[in-house]
């Protein structure tokens, strides 16, 4: 595999996730929908609110998209198939995802509307709740891999996937991943009880970018779940990249569907649960991994 093929594969993944998202949000599986919806958005006016913070308003969608794509760039699709094999890839995924929050806060503040403002600051609260839960399980993954490289994270799962080695970490990371890409029930920043929230003041081409960024985030986070916990490219018979692809789409579909079965959480609940149960459990997970690794030695 070569670099352009990663991009193509990722674009294909984006399209599939977009189709799945349409399915999850309208209940109909239509293959042409993302393309048609995208063109329809481009054909509509791109309204700018009166005297917004123009710089932040324009930057926010780009930042959201860039954060999703950059995080994906360090995640491997197959053995040796990774755009940028950073030695600190695991950490880099975190740092790119931190800018999702920056982008949403910008997008919430910039238009100067009450709904988006509330929604933007809400997401910061959500970040305070989930951030530790995304970081700590990844640390436990790095403990097994003895490295911060994402490829090493996959290689360390040859004998046992992290899903089995640290189920608690997987559960926490999965939930936190849903919170990062603000999927239901964590869709506070774009919630329908604030008339679309942060995305509410974006129209036309800008809205298209915001929606694309959301899809990219879902794909990236699913890929991250696969790489860190589901053995990445590991799997019998089929080529590695097919495994990665299949697993990623499966995780994305699960993420998109599962959250819709429960009501949207309140920021207060997300925060309290994240800190009172999430962080202690994440510490227990680290301790568990630490002890099992000692046992292995």
């Amino acid at each position, binding site marked *: 595999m070569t670099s352009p093929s990663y991009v193509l594969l990722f674009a294909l993944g984006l399209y599939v996730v977009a189709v799945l998202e349409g399915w999850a949000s309208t209940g109909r599986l239509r293959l042409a929908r993302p393309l048609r919806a995208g063109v329809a958005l*481009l*054909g509509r*006016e*791109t*309204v*700018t*609110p*009166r005297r917004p913070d123009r710089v932040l308003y324009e930057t926010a969608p*780009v930042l959201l*998209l*860039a954060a999703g*794509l*950059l995080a994906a*760039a360090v995640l491997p699709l197959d053995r040796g198939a990774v*755009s*940028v*094999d*950073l*030695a*600190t890839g*695991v*950490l880099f995924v975190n740092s790119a995802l931190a800018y999702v929050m920056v982008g949403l806060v910008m997008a919430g503040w910039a238009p*100067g*509307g*009450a*709904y988006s*403002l509330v929604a933007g*600051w809400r997401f*910061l*609260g959500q970040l*305070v*709740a989930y*951030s*530790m839960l995304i970081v700590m399980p990844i*640390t436990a993954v*790095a*403990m097994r891999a*003895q490295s*911060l490289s994402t490829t090493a994270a996959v290689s360390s799962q040859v004998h046992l996937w992290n899903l089995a080695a640290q189920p608690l970490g997987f559960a926490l990371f999965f939930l936190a991943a849903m919170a990062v890409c603000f999927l239901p029930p964590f869709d506070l920043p774009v919630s329908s009880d604030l*008339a679309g929230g942060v995305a*509410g*003041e974006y129209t036309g*081409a800008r809205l*298209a*970018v915001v929606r694309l960024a959301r899809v990219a985030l879902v794909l990236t986070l699913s890929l991250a779940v696969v790489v860190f916990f589901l053995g990445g490219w590991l799997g019998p018979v089929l080529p590695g990249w097919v495994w990665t692809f299949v697993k990623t789409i499966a995780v994305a579909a699960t993420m998109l569907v599962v959250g819709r079965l429960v009501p949207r959480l309140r920021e*207060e609940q997300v*925060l*309290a649960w994240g*800190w*009172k149960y999430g*962080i*202690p459990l994440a*510490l227990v997970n*680290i*301790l568990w991994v*630490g*002890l099992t*690794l*000692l046992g292995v*030695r």
Partner: protein
Amino acid sequence: MTPLEQYGLLAAFVLSTIGLVAMLRLIARSLGGVRKEPGKDVPFSGGELAPKPVWVRYHVHYYGFALLFLAFDMEMAFMYPWAVVYQELGLEALADMAVFLGILFLGLLYGWSQGALRRQ
């Protein structure tokens, strides 16, 4: 690839994202501009024209969490290098980190007991 080339590639990714967005905006622009009309550029607020500026001092009710988070977050800076060498050092590393996390957890418990972990 040397590390520096890798960082260059990451920068190129950022630039191409910007390029992608610019291209989308150009396509959209080629389909027509935005007509200026009264009321159109006012943020939607339930069918009323926005009455007051909202950029005022905003009460963030989760600042108790935020303060704890600011301090607690720094733990990560130490945990990543620790995780890398954990298997090499074994029990000693586990003990070290247990003490460190124990100390931090005390802080968390204190905050909890003082009511930082709730809406203010």
